[in-house]
């Protein structure tokens, strides 16, 4: 990570603006970068992340597409084979299921199965939805599919800083990168240097240092982990919070080292847990500790059901700061303690209310 911005050039930006700025900069810098996907050029501009770019770079480099996710992914791969650097945007990760054949069978494999003669510098952006009745088909965090397949990289930045730096790194990467965003993160503000920088693949960040338990929060769940850390602090439990940032390649070493130090690990997934990122992390930690003492480990994530729309069930579907804190607390105290922190106003989740 090249982090040498002078403090003077650091502004507070939203996650939305960070993505837009990175895209803008990469497009300005390299005429081979182009941006397309359903609705990228419409008045809402993918919730603002593509705002102004069609005016600046023209409709050949920035364009909306037909409702044809499969062919547009295939076309993106073709463009990449021709030396362009396409960014293909999906407003929901759920829709990427239409493009699995191209991603799994072509994008991930072209470099290898063509013996290195081809490569696919492609960025696929997709957004995970949450709350306000998104429901079963507008809420999925299916990134484990992409972690599973060799040949793809996967990144899920949680801060504006990382959003910009990861987007820049993803665009410059010579390989397909699945760029995972979360709708609720779009409201997040944070310091973002004005200069160019890249947050490179394969390095996790220790967001908060701690000694009693390690919390790994993926994508939006990083936010809930940071809040959980505050709840835990108030009852004398010191949590270390790690943001993996890149899910493939995954920085297992940083997580293993932390879990070894604290002796306890909670991974909070922004998706289902079965064969999920948390499963991968727990398995990797387990393997790393084979033959010696292993940390106490727990996964959290979506309830093992499709996402319900009604708020009464949705609340139980997702982990949140308080349930994460409770889980960590139990791990620290070696069993169910029945402690659940009272909700604090300063640690409330942002809820998002429609329309969409």
């Amino acid at each position, binding site marked *: 990570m090249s982090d040498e911005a002078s403090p003077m050039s650091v502004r507070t930006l939203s996650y939305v603006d960070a993505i837009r700025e990175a895209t803008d900069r990469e497009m300005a810098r390299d005429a081979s970068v182009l941006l397309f996907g359903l609705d990228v050029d419409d*008045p809402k501009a993918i919730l603002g992340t593509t705002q102004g770019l069609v005016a600046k770079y023209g409709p050949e480099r920035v364009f909306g*597409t037909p*409702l044809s996710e499969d062919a547009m992914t295939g076309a993106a791969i073709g463009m990449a084979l021709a030396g362009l650097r396409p960014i293909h945007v999906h407003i929901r990760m759920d829709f990427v299921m239409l493009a699995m054949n191209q991603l799994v069978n072509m994008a991930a494999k072209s470099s290898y199965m063509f013996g290195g003669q081809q490569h696919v510098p492609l960025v696929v952006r997709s957004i995970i939805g949450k709350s306000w009745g998104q429901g079963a088909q507008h809420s999925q965090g299916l990134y484990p599919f992409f972690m599973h397949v060799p040949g793809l990289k996967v990144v899920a930045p949680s801060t504006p800083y990382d959003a910009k730096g990861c987007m820049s790194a993803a665009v410059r990467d010579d390989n397909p990168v699945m760029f995972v965003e979360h709708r609720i993160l779009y409201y997040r503000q944070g310091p973002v240097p004005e200069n160019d920088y890249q947050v490179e693949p394969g390095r996790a960040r220790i967001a908060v240092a701690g000694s009693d338990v390690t919390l790994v929060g993926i994508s939006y769940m990083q936010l809930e982990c940071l809040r959980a850390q505050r709840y835990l602090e108030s009852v004398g439990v010191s949590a270390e919070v790690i943001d993996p940032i890149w899910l493939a390649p995954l920085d297992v070493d940083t997580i293993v080292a932390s879990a070894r130090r604290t002796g306890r690990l909670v991974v909070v997934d922004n998706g289902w847990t079965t064969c999920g990122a948390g499963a991968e992390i727990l398995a990797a930690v387990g393997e790393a500790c084979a033959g010696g003492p292993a940390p106490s480990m727990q996964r959290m994530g979506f309830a093992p059901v499709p996402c319900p729309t009604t708020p009464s069930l949705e609340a*139980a*579907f997702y982990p949140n700061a308080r349930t994460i804190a409770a889980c960590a607390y139990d791990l620290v105290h070696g069993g169910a303690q029945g402690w659940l922190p009272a909700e604090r106003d300063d640690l409330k989740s942002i809820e998002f209310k*429609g*329309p969409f």
Partner: protein
Amino acid sequence: MNESAMRLHDAALVERLYRSLYRIRRVEEDIARRYPGNDIKSPVHLSIGQEAIAVGVCEALAPDDVVFGTYRGHAMYLAKGGDLDRMIAELFGRVDGCARGKGGSMHLVDVARGVMGTSAVVATTIPNAVGYAYAMKLRREPRIVVSFFGDGATEEGVFYESINFAALKRVPVLFVCENNGWAIHTHQRQRQATLDICGRVRAFGMDAQRIEDGDVFDIHGTVAAAAARMRAGDSGPLFIECMTSRWREHVGPGEDFELGFRSREDEARWIEDDAVAKLAALIPERQRAAVDAAVHAEIENAFTRAAASPFPDADELHRHVFHER
């Protein structure tokens, strides 16, 4: 219009069509009005302006015919006889909702009335409808299936795969494309190399026709004739494209003319040619007032009942992932 002149004599039909149109319009206007409040718990894609299609089609169907649709499904659900109370309860996220509060506005269903479901992913229910029709044909049932979808859905590959298979196996499915010209804020011209959707369908050997003006009698008559041919088993699947206009924003209660991608003038001829108003004018005032009053009462009742329905209990979270016999 010939057709519609003829139909005018059938006062009962006129009243049925009016009742259904007015009811849907009022339900959706009420939803829009109440949307800023706290009761509706999911995004809504309103059909206001497009009701004549669902009504014209569904009034021409038999009760045991079935329909599949999209997230813009209120009109279809109600026109096919879907339970209003359960629809509003669903929008409110209550356990008495048609999907027990688990589906919301985008996943309406009422199997008893033949509303087989709607999907938030564009074009997904098209092949489901074809498969359902295959089952009917296999079992020699004289029922038909209607698949509703938008102009945007015809860009998805699965649409062509579905059309091909339906035509190959000659299954009793009626495809109804509701062409409002837009996919969110992008016009058909920006998405399709030619605007002739019917021509593309015909190239698969399927009969296709386009109804230009959204006239509810035309739609009704066309579907009645198509359904009769399909039931008799001598047509194979059929395709109807209904031109129409969405008056509200893509999702949400408001309008979208201020966004600049289209203007009120663009849609003016549609708004002036409002099916609800046109049908209202064909019905004697007293009769119409009675229909309206009944509709108002039913709607008021539905909202009241929905508000009184509880939210699902915590144990509902884990139910229905798999079938419970």
